[in-house]
């Protein structure tokens, strides 16, 4: 891996920003290129005239101090060309699900260790999508009516991975290869994103119709 992965951090906790800078500073192959307290600030740095170069991966805090909707934040960052790895202090399961539906590439709690975080960033940067037990737990125990249908196999892998097993152990238990197990997890995430996309399109359509009719008057 010759190319350096560029990373940005959107978090309104200054201490955490400093800590992350120190943390990632020592990791070869990663470079923290920007920090901001909101996605808007990241996309339009106030003191720079340079054209914005989207970082490969944006680490986005799930709940920002300005009370902005995580879904909007994720869509904004995705539209700028970055991939998004959501992080949060407490696993707020409903919002984790919303994030995945909105297209986030992964989710981690902030108490994970550095190797886990780095591995997740690398996975997201490579377009593989990052998996974590906390995300799997949120999906496995999603009671909302909008949840996608999962096959029994997908469910089993999801539950085992959510219980803390490594993907390798979960695969062995199910009698399949790690590769297939990862496929199952990818499929679950894809189903959520697909469902999210459809819902979003509907909302968008409704909004467009409303705006059109307002314009027409």
């Amino acid at each position, binding site marked *: 891996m010759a190319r350096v992965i560029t990373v940005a951090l959107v978090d309104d906790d200054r201490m955490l920003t400093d800590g992350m800078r120190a943390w990632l500073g020592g990791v070869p192959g990663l470079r923290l290129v920007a920090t901001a307290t909101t996605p808007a600030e990241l996309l339009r740095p106030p003191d720079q005239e340079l054209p914005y170069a989207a970082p490969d991966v944006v680490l986005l805090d799930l709940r920002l101090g300005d009370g902005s909707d995580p879904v909007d934040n994720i869509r904004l960052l995705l539209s700028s060309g970055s991939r998004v790895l959501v992080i949060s202090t*407490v696993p707020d399961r409903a919002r984790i699900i919303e994030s995945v539906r909105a297209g986030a590439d992964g989710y981690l709690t902030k108490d994970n260790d550095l190797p886990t975080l780095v591995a997740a960033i690398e996975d997201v940067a490579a377009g593989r999508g990052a998996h974590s037990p906390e995300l799997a737990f949120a999906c496995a*125990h999603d009671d909302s009516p909008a949840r996608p249908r999962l096959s029994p196999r997908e469910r089993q892998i999801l539950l085992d991975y959510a219980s*803390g097993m*490594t993907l390798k*152990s979960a695969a*062995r*238990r199910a009698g399949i290869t790690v590769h297939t197990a990862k496929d199952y997890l990818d499929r679950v995430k894809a189903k959520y994103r697909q469902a999210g996309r459809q819902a979003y399109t509907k909302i968008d359509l409704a909004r467009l119709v409303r705006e059109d009719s307002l314009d027409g008057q």
Partner: protein
Amino acid sequence: MALSAVPLWLRRPGLPREQTAAGSGLQRARSFMVLATLLYRVSHLAVGLVAVLQHQRDEPVPYALLALALGLSALVHGTALRRGWFERRHIWADVLVNGVALPLTLYAWGGAEDSAALGWAMLLGGSACATAALVLDRLQVVGVVVLLAATHLLGYRLVDASTAVVLGHTNSLLSSAAMAWVFWWYLRRQGRLLDDANARTLAAEATRARYVERLEHHRLLHDTVLATLTTLAAGGVDANTPQVQERCAREAAYLRRLIEQTADEVHHRGIGEALEDVVGAAESLRLRVTVRYHALPEVPPEVSVALADAVREALNNVRRHAGTDHAYLTATADPGRPGAVVVTVVDRGCGFDPERCEPGLGLRLSVCKRMTAVGGRAELDTEPGEGVRVELRWPG
């Protein structure tokens, strides 16, 4: 953490008043009225026996009718004693047979030709309409009273009873119904008031228990998070030492669970509390435990204890043999089976060969024994290099 032990029955609001049965005020009022009407009827049957012996000693029909009255009374009041309240159709049968048909039959075929011989059968109408006043709807009660009064008037006219007897007995009939109804109304009202007062006491008790629980949380926060933060803020210690970092991580994990739990508070009492104790103990022995709960059902206390013991055993095993300082604990409802629970303890450590290794043996014995004792089951899954997964299910 070990929080106030709120008994299960305190946590179940909104049971319909009638279902709380046994000791409720309403049920007590019912028991009393069942007993009172039973005694009333017994007194009438006793009068009947004396009257038959005095006036119709040699006739068979009055004995048969007395036996019929006795049998029907036994059915009406026996059922009420057993089930706690009267059956509507029994009441109708009592009114129509004992109150109406019986005196007329006694006159027609029993040879009762004066008011002294007929009177005992008329009395049964009085106790019948007292019971009817408790059970039937208001309009039906009026109908029953009119019907029985008509029977009185007709019966006594047939035997040419004196006006004083007719008036006296009819008056007794009406007042039986009226008094039974008034007593019942009063007792029922007192019973409701008592039930409401009890419900308020229980609610107050539950609030107090929650308050105690919150205080307990605050005390724990004070001893842990607040103490650590205050020390760090004072600047006397180096925050970068492993000890301080470890302590911070442990306390952060506690706060994290606390926040997750309060979001879903109601479900996690019982199992959640028992597991929290175990996790706290494991953390103080320097094991990092990632805990996740979801929609835990209420289970009998001994099941919570068994689950907690089994989890303690599994976490001990991680600490001693897994070669890792991190374990995962999940406790959730079993989606396929209402009321069932699944708990897993997982590590990503060295694992072992389940066929040969002695940690496996000890783990399996101690964990399985605890679960099977309460009707649950435990399952072990491991391979060398692949960590250990212990799954506990209840019911098994």
